[in-house]
């Protein structure tokens, strides 16, 4: 054979499809990847440290900036953790509202993951369709809290304000509109011969690897492990809702994409159930002080965020500011799988696999 050399290629941070500011250093033998090393930290803002100098309430807007495509989830996780530390009871209506918002957020976020998954494979149209649908969710959010990306909506013991009157109807309209669209996207992308060629058997994540690298969320479920904190360790009022957990078979890129699509369907079901059973009442617990001073202690409260297990570990020393706040971000753990899944594939597969891991760098770098 002719002697050939390896090519060292920088992919990112300025690359159209590294989903933010990830840098992967690839060692290539021809077009095949010998080694892939992810480098992170381009979006590091030190949120965990900043949080130590803010009061508990002031941290809520900071959490918005973690996983910026699903801010509601971050609010949710943080607020739940602090509530557990303080022992605050949340009114039922507030819990329902939270679940509606969280599930809508899950759909919005999965739409981005699904659409960019298509974009990475070269199908641009499905991407724009997904953004069109996401726009409708953002309009719902805007109706409720006035913001479209960083909501700052959850409060200790509830949410900042009640739904406006027209919300329930708009949300129902959205569900009615969204269901056939999901079928359409399944036909357009998942059942497409070329997309299946590009994703089936590509980036296979074995169960063992998934568990040992701490993967969670759709990435873990795509590998065939039925694990969802909403079912396993129900928080808020998730035990009252009836939904399925989609699980993939082979753990390849297609399975992960399919799991996301299926989760959107389940989330629509949850939103519908929550809208049906939405109780009346207050949306904020009574008697939560303006300046929060939790009793000394520590708490870890994970929730099933869009990308997997999102948990806030908070240590309180009894003062008005958290002594330490650590975010267990799912995207970070999922991203650490890159060297494992990408190795041996081709350059064209890198972006597709990366897209299926769906990292958001606000959360990875914090």
């Amino acid at each position: 054979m002719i002697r050939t050399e390896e090519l060292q290629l920088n992919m990112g941070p300025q690359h159209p499809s590294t989903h933010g500011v990830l840098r992967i250093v690839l060692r290539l033998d021809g077009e095949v990847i010998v080694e892939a090393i992810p480098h992170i930290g381009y979006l590091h803002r030190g949120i965990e440290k900043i949080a130590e100098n803010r009061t508990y309430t002031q941290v809520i807007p900071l959490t918005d900036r973690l996983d910026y495509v699903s801010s509601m989830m971050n609010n949710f996780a943080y607020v739940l953790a602090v509530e557990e530390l303080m022992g605050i009871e949340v009114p039922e209506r507030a819990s329902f509202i939270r679940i509606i918002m969280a599930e809508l957020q899950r759909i919005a976020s999965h739409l981005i993951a699904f659409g960019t998954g298509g974009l990475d494979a070269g199908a641009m149209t499905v991407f724009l369709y997904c953004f069109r649908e996401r726009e409708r969710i953002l309009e719902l959010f805007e109706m409720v809290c006035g913001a479209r990306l960083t909501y700052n909506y959850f409060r200790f013991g509830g949410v900042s304000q009640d739904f406006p009157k027209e919300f329930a109807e708009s949300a129902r309209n959205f569900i009615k509109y969204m269901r056939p669209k999901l079928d359409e996207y399944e036909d357009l992308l998942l059942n497409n011969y070329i997309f299946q060629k590009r994703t089936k058997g590509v980036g296979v994540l074995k169960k063992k690897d998934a568990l040992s690298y701490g993967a969670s969320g759709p990435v873990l479920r795509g590998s065939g492990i039925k694990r969802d904190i909403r079912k396993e360790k129900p928080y808020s009022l998730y035990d009252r809702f009836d939904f399925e957990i989609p699980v993939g078979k082979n753990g390849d890129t297609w399975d992960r994409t399919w799991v996301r699509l299926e989760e959107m369907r389940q989330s629509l079901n949850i939103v519908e159930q929550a809208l049906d059973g939405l109780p009346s009442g207050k949306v904020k617990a009574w008697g939560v002080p303006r300046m929060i001073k939790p009793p000394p202690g520590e708490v870890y409260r994970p929730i099933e965020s869009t990308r997997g297990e999102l948990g806030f570990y908070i240590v309180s020393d009894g003062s008005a500011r958290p002594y330490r706040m650590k975010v267990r971000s799912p995207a970070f753990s999922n991203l650490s799988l890159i060297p494992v899944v990408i190795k041996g594939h081709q350059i064209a597969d890198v972006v597709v696999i990366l897209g299926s891991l769906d990292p958001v760098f606000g959360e990875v770098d914090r």
Partner: protein
Amino acid sequence: MEFYLLDVLLVLIFSGIGIILIALIFGLSKLISTAKPSEVKESTYECGNVPIGESWIQFRVRYYIFALLFVILDIEMIFLFPWAIVFQRMGLFALIEMAIFVGLLVVGLVYAWRKGALKWV
């Protein structure tokens, strides 16, 4: 003979016209465009980082065997065209003859396929 020469000449003339016209557009662009080169602007793009290593290397071309097969079949293709033109006049004899010729090549191709040459190594 001269007829073919004229054809070749025409292709050359047209290439010349094309080159001149593109050169004219380049010239026009040179006249009206700005040129403010700087070190950063002229640096090689590699996603915002300084390139690691060289890009002029002995790259591993993984479709090397395909390329070899390509040459063989490309020549076969050239033989097929004159055959196709006279086919209607030659009839069954030509078809059998070409079937044998293509058949030999196909046997070679199948052999290569079986051997795993038609795989992206």
